[in-house]
């Protein structure tokens, strides 16, 4: 794989865009699910950097998603009509990027104070921050208060979602699989030993948070322009838990496992449409069963080695 990573990335993006252009022949419904999968991959892989690789327990990822989503949507709603059609894709890209950056700033704001806390306490604080973000959007007239934003243009396509999914995977995998990136895992394994070996734990934790938040923000932007309606309720702590479950199911720290888990956990609810009323009940039982039987995730076999 050495030296070929960039080519893989470009190939993946090309494939995503190519498939997207020819997507007229695919069933609308399935296409929609495919976009969902792409978005969830971004969410899961970005959270994996924080929770899985660096071992920090963030229960507020949905908050960053909300920040990115609302920012991007507000931008396209306000300025979208004045942009000439030829520039639409660049404008969308810029909106997504802006969402990501604002979310990253959020990651900084949350990360810096929280990161001297451990375990349970960190989980609770991130949960609290996630909820505070939700409350802010719920009470903000600028963002539509409780009703949220509506009438968002359907700009997200299969190509956009999966291209960004590829980028997210590339970024996270490349960072972690480097001498520098081993620092994240060192912080996860033993902060004290890591410090003694020259690794600044706070810097790594904050970096993980910021990068994770950035991609969550992008996912939020893609989500907004896919669902076309954005309500603050949708970004509550249950949403954060859904992403956390993907990371755990995939085996914290295993990028490939987490991607698979994201795919499975997106498709499963669709398969369970028939028993929609039991959906969340089954889901919560799944969480309990998973923790009781295989807390290391479904996709871990054999020895633990460097993350691929």
């Amino acid at each position, binding site marked *: 794989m050495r030296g070929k990573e960039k080519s893989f990335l470009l190939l993946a993006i090309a494939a995503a865009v190519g498939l997207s252009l020819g997507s007229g022949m695919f069933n609308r419904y399935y296409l929609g699910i495919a976009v969902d999968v792409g978005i969830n991959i971004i969410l899961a892989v970005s959270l994996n950097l924080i929770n899985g690789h660096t071992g920090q327990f963030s229960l507020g990822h949905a908050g960053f998603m909300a920040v990115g989503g609302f920012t991007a949507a507000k931008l396209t709603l306000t300025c979208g009509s004045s942009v000439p059609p030829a520039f639409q894709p660049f404008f969308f890209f810029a909106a997504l990027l802006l969402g990501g950056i604002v979310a990253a700033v959020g990651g900084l704001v949350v990360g810096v104070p929280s990161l001297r806390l451990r375990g349970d306490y960190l989980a609770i604080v991130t949960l609290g921050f996630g909820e505070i973000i939700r409350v802010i959007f719920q009470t903000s007239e600028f963002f539509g208060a409780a009703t949220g934003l509506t009438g968002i243009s359907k700009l997200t396509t299969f190509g956009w979602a999966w291209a960004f999914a590829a980028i997210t995977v590339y970024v996270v995998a490349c960072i972690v699989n480097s001498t520098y990136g081993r620092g994240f895992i060192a912080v996860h394994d033993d902060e004290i030993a890591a410090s003694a070996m020259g690794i600044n734990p706070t810097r790594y934790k904050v970096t993980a948070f910021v990068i994770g938040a950035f991609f969550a923000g992008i996912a939020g932007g893609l989500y907004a322009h896919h669902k076309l309606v954005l309500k603050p309720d949708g970004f509550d702590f249950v949403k954060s838990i859904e992403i956390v479950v993907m990371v755990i199911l995939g085996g914290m720290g295993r990028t490939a496992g987490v991607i698979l888990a994201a795919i499975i956990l997106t498709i499963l609810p669709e398969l369970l449409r028939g028993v929609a009323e039991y959906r969340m009940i089954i889901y919560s039982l799944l*969480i309990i069963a998973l923790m009781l039987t295989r807390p290391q995730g479904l996709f871990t076999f054999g020895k633990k080695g460097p993350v691929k």
Partner: protein
Amino acid sequence: MDSFLQQLINGLALGAIYALIALGYTMVYGVLRFINFAHSDVLMLGAFAAFYLAPHITPLLGVQSVPSALVVIIVSAAICAVIGMTIEFLAYRPLRKRPRLTVLITAIGVSLFIEFTGQHEKVFGAATKSFPTLLPKREIILGALHCSSNDLVVLVLTAVLLVAMWFIVQRTKIGMAMRAVSFNEQAASLMGVNVNGIISFTFGLGSALAAIAGIFYSMRAPGIEPLMGVQPGLRAFIAAVLGGIGNLPGAALGGVVLGLLETFLGGMPGLSNYRDGIAFAMLILILLFRPAGLLGKLSTEKV
């Protein structure tokens, strides 16, 4: 002045409820070192237990009478104690040796399970139900003070319960065993303490208190529904952290402080929308500046 005293009683009653719930959180954290997310749902189960029980008890012991109220409360508390112990046995005990975060997620799963199952039509249904009036609501006038008899009942009963808790923990053998387990589980078991039994007992006690708190809560805000435990549970958790998680007097103190703060701040114009946000902000501030809480002690890791 009147309205200040009124708010005071109000705040204390709310604080009492938070204190009862907070005790449960703190006791479980003390013996198991984890935050039982499902605790807030036991509160809800207590209220629903009372809801379904009351119509069966009142024909026998009188509508809105003290005996029937007592029986309903005690039986509901007992039911929830059993539920709490069952949850511990099924979902937490198998994970005793695992990392704390695994149990935390399991607790979240249990909480969601209870909430979503409760919302299903065949169980409680998502709609709000009206809580029966257990005790006649009278207005009591003490000098310049007007307050509701319910509030007084809550205050008096909670005080009794807190004293009882203090007595159990400090002056009985089982309380000593609880304290031993919270200091050092291994050493306690070497001293002959039945650790599993004590942990069960702790869960039972905490759940009973939560159930009673749930009934008190419904006496003041009579609409009950499956998600009713979430907000009070969260506030009580913040109260427990405020007082110092693992510290029993701290939980009581934290509950009262939070109840008072919420009543006085919530009354201020313009802030009521932000009540949720204020509670969370407080939590974050405590954890950042004084994670040990008002009465707690921070433990350091040995390098």
